[in-house]
């Protein structure tokens, strides 16, 4: 039973990682690509690590796999946020069909600080 569940988790994880790669290859804009790569790939690796922990069935190995999972779940949003912020400052163009960019005009590009809409 645990083997069946483990294999199912591995296949689901591989499928999620493939979906993330398809999104990165085909979406039109950096920020859309980043949304695909961060969320879907992290979920895929999470499924794979859960499947590995179930397959080996040993506590010491399962703790290592779950440590990898927790570490990825903590660092993936941090890394994506840092990279998206850097890309926004670098002036990466948005997709032509983008309807609203709520950050436009609120970032001071010289000092890299956020100024609210109410400040003069």
């Amino acid at each position, binding site marked *: 039973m645990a083997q069946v569940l483990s294999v199912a988790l591995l296949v689901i994880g*591989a499928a999620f990682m493939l979906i993330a790669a398809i999104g990165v290859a085909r979406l039109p804009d950096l920020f859309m690509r980043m949304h695909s790569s961060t969320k879907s790939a992290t979920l895929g690796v999470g499924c794979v690590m859960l499947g590995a922990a179930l397959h080996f069935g040993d506590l010491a190995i399962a703790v290592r*796999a779950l440590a990898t999972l927790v570490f990825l779940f903590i660092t993936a949003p*941090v890394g994506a946020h840092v990279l998206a912020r850097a890309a926004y400052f670098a002036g990466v163009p948005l997709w032509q069909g983008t309807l609203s960019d709520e950050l436009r005009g609120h970032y001071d590009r010289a000092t890299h600080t956020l100024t609210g809409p109410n400040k003069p």
Partner: protein
Amino acid sequence: MTLEGLLFGLLSLAIFLALTRLVRGPSLPDRAVALDLMAVLTVGFIGIYAVVMNRPIFLDLALVLALIAFLGTVAFAHFIEKGELPWRKS
């Protein structure tokens, strides 16, 4: 087609698609995103390889690679935002 062939095929295709974005990406942040995705996909590949080969020692490798990939992403972001390498203050 065996099951591990299916798993390795899916992940190889995924890494190849990320590689096309790495080659094609119009700007430097696009390439940084593609490299980050390739590192995460490699972590998943190592996890699947450890299960298929029945060698749990490879899971340690996956943990180390996840750590180094995060450091690489942050260093790339720092380079893109500040325009200089973090250890070379002018």
